[in-house]
Each structure stands twice: as C-alpha cells, then as structure tokens.
C-alpha cells in the first residue's frame, strides 16, 4: 500500500469513529470542516484543475440550498428528490455564466469579477422573491430530533456529520478519477497554457464550460446539505461574497490544484478560526475583532511564505507525491 493510501485509510478511520470520541461542539466543528472541505474541493475543479478563478461560488451553494429548501418547504419534497433539481439548476447556471464569459473572451481577474457580479446580482434578486421568503428568510420545518430520518435528512448531529463525510469522500474519489481522466488532462493543459492546449486539438471552450458545470453541480449538493443542516436560509447569509471567499480559502491554504489540499486547508482554517477564539479567550483578550485580526495575519503569513499552500511541502516531507 502506498503512503498516500495508508494516510487516506488512516484519516478515514479516524473520521469514521470521530463522533464517538467527540463532544457535540467538536462534532459540529468536524461537520463544518467537512463542509468546507467539500465545497473547496468542488471549487478546486474550476480553479485548481481548469484554471478559472471563480469568486462567486456562493451562488451555487445558494441555488442548491434554495432549490431543495423550497421544494421541501412548499411541497414537502425531501432533499434526495430535490438534489437532482438542485444540481441541475446550479450546473445550468454555471453553464450559462461560463458560456457567456468564455464566448466573449472574459478571463482572469475579469472572469473572477464577473462571477462575483452574478452572485451579488442573485443575492439581491432573492431579496425580492417572495416565494422563497425574500430577505425574511425561508424557515424549514424541524422534525423530532431523536429519530433518524434519512429520507428527509432529519436526525441527530452525527447524521449530518456522516452525510458530509460521505460527500467529502465521494468528492475526493470523483476528483481523483477526474484528474486521471481525459478531462483532467485537458483541464490541466488549459490551465497551464490555453493556446498550446488548443493547438493540441482541445476544444477549450467546451472543456472549460464542462469544468464549470461539474464544479457548480458539485457545489450545489453542499447547498442542499446547508439548507437541511441549518433549516433557515437568508439570501444575505447564503449568497454573501464572504461565503464565496470561505469556499476559496480551504483550497488556497491547503494547495490549489491538489487533491488533499482542500481537505487539509479546510481543517486548518476552521480549526484556526475556532482555535483563535479559544486562545484569545484563554489569554483574556476578548475584544471584538481580535479573532479576525489573528485570522487575517495567519492567512497573510501562509500566503507570503507558503505560496503553494500547506499541503504540497508537507506531502513532500511525508514522502507522498
């Protein structure tokens, strides 16, 4: 067994027994880590694989959340039935944005700004859609807490943890498959040099759109989870630009374009943010904003001194290629 496989098995084993070891708070932090790992992995398909910088991924989380949430809220249709719709809608949105952007030759920073603009546009738009509750929010009905109802994704916290764990593992497997497939080769070629990729017969436009569709669809699944985990949705919360940045952070801290980076990065930055709160409390320095400053400084240090992210140098040290 290779070192990577060993590490992966070990991690998975720890992750599987974690709910038995951890208290409620740790479990919720664990769920949060997995959530960010998953969304960041999804984002990584676009940026890490295909090289297209999206800063508006909250859009797809929101579409997924609202699609599945609204089906449940208005028609009592459970999340699993809502899932395909959520994925389809988000993928469609991704395709539309990608087609517009790439057809008109929007790229780089401009593309990033375009994705922000679409997300913001949608956020404000949702503020004026009364069917989804507008800014007042959409509140999903909550069932009894001790019954495990997989059909409606209702149950104790551990259920959500395992759902998220399954999703994260699934995303890792999917991304690993993708990376080794024709798509993976083509995307990386496009990322490295679009012109050269095109000269090798790659229809750059089509493959970029595909990357966007897959990334958006994957992200939407986390939105469905988000809706049923939180039970209340507000456009301001869901589509916020800050959300999009959180999604990006995992990959960037962990290592853009790597498979383990997003997972590792999500863990680091979630623990950092929680740890900073605890640490500041421990040293009696509970001033509003102090956590944010610590967070910002650490982020700054990582970016300045570890431009590849934390994972690649660590992997080298562990002897994993």
């Amino acid at each position, binding site marked *: 067994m290779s070192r990577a496989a060993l590490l992966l098995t070990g991690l998975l084993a720890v992750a599987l027994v974690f709910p038995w070891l951890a208290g409620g708070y740790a479990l919720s932090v664990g769920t949060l880590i997995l959530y960010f790992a998953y969304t960041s992995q999804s984002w990584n398909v676009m940026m890490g694989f295909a090289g297209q910088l999206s800063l508006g991924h909250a859009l797809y989380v929101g579409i997924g959340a609202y699609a599945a949430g609204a089906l449940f809220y208005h028609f009592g249709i459970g999340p699993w039935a809502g899932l395909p719709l959520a994925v389809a809608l988000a993928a469609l949105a991704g395709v539309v944005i990608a087609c517009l952007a790439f057809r008109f030759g929007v790229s780089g920073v401009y593309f990033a700004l375009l994705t*922000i*603009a679409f997300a913001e546009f949608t956020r404000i*738009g949702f503020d004026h859609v009364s069917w989804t509750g507008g800014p007042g929010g959409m509140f999903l009905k909550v069932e009894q807490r001790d019954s495990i109802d997989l059909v409606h994704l209702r149950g104790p916290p551990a259920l959500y943890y395992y759902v998220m764990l399954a999703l994260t593992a699934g995303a890792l497997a999917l991304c690993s498959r993708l990376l080794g497939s024709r798509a993976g080769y083509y995307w990386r070629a496009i990322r490295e040099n679009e012109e050269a990729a095109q000269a090798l017969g790659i229809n750059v436009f089509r493959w970029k759109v595909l990357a966007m569709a897959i990334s958006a669809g994957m992200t939407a699944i986390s939105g469905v989870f988000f809706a049923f985990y939180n039970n209340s949705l507000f456009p301001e919360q869901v589509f916020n630009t800050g959300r999009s940045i959180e999604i*990006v952070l995992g990959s960037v801290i962990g290592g853009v374009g790597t498979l383990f980076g997003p997972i590792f990065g999500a863990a680091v930055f979630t623990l950092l943010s929680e740890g900073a709160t605890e640490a500041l409390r421990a040293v009696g320095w509970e001033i509003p904003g*102090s956590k944010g*400053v610590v*967070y910002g400084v650490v*982020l700054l240090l990582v970016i300045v001194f570890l431009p590849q992210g934390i994972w690649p140098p660590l992997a080298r040290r562990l002897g994993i290629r």
Partner: protein
Amino acid sequence: MSFDLVANVAISGILTGLVYGLMALGLSVIFGVVRVVNFAHGQMMSVAMYAAALLFARFELDPFLAVAPVAVAFFVLGYALQAGLINRFITRPEHSQFLLLVAVGLILVNGLLMAFGPDARSVQVDYQLESFEFGDILIDKARAYAAGLAIVTALLLGGFFRFTWTGVAIRACADNYFAARVVGLHVRRLYALTFGLGAVCVAVAGCALTLLVDVTPSLGPHYTLLAFVIVIVGGLGSMIGALLGGVLIGVSEAVGGLLISPSAKSMLSFGLLIVVLLLRPQGLFGRRS
C-alpha cells in the same frame, strides 16, 4: 413622477457618484499600473474615514482640512504596503494576489473593530444639514463640496500623470513592464509610488465621504465591490472613465431607486457590470487594447 423629484435625486446621484468615482480612480490607477487587484480597497477607505472622524472628534478638524494629513499618511502607507508586501506578489498567480489582499482587508476591518468598536462614527459640521436651494431643487452642501474636492483631486492626479516625468514613467510602466525595465526605470519603486497615489485617492474620497456616510468597521467590503463595478464599467486605466463610471453608477442607482424598489437598486450596478464585461470589456470609456 415629478420632474423635481427626478432632478433632485439625479443631482445627488451625480455628486455622490463623483466621490465614489474618486475612490474608484484610486483602484483604477493601482490596477492599471501594478496589475494587482486591490481587494482591500474599500477597507482602506474605511480606515481613512475613521481617521477623518477621529481628527474631527479630537481636534474639531473639518474633514476637508483633514484631507491633507490623512492623504500624506495614506501615501506613506500605500507606498510601504506595495514596497514591503505586494511587490513580492506581482509575478504570483492571480488567486494568490487576491488572497493576499483579502487577508489585508480582513486585518483592516477587524483592526478597526478592535480599535473603535462596532458603533457608527460620524462627523457633525454646521453645513452638513444645509442645502443650496434652486426653486424646488435642493442640493446638499456637504455633498456638493465633496464632489468638488473629488474633481479637484482627479484633475491634480491627471496633471501629475501628464506633465511630470515620474507620471509619464509610471504610464510607461503600465504600458509595458518589460520595456520599462529595459529603458532602466526602477519599476518596483514606481509601482510603490503608484500604490501610494492610489491610496491618496482613497484617503481624499474617504475624508469627503465621512460627511455623507457614517463610518462603521464593516463598511469596507461593500465599497471594494462598488469600486470594482465603477472601474470596470468606466474602463480600466481610463481616469475620466473612473469618474464618469462613478457618476453613471451614482445616477443609475439613484434613479433606479425611484423606478424600482430601492432595496433592489444595487442590482442595476451589478447588472450593468455584467453587461459591460460581456459586451465591452474595455469599459464604456476605455480604449480597446
């Protein structure tokens, strides 16, 4: 809808837009030359606003007079930021630069929160509640002065780029990085200078804006986005484009607020941004590159 109403709203939109335009001008200059996306732009401006509010609270210094010290301080800070940090990033990939400035923005927002708490600060001067009256048309005095300051600052900056050797050198850098290096320009120093000048725009706009808007630590990100919208719509690297873009956004949001629900008016800006990016990526007033 009466003419007075539209005229009143449009005029105030133009005036506010000019101030926003000045802020965006700072972004345009930085982006146009250094090619780095300043995602901490609005956050920097909220720092300037705090500085102005603080100078007022401590010394009763009118924000229009506070412009001088704040601008000088910002020039130094901007220069230092570029020279010490961002210059190391000019060859890094875009997402890396973006995160660097996100981190800077985070530190600024939360630093302000730590230093000043969450409550809004404002400046109270006599002319703030006064207006020029032309029949039914009322023009807010503070707003008019702020817009005037924005225009003067933009003109000075324009003059600098056109008539001074350094200004011309900076433009050369913007046009062609390698050529500029080949002819022996100290590019990195010029970059730092540019960032300093961008920061001055931000400082002046921030001081002017304290008269119109109460400042809170969380104000920054909103203005960062606004600055981007203006710069892209107006045309990157076009100085007049940034000002006109500001005016356009100011007026469209103002008039939009009359026609549709005011809470939806920002959709117009983002909608405009999307359309411009797709159809005229060089901006409405920019040259095709």
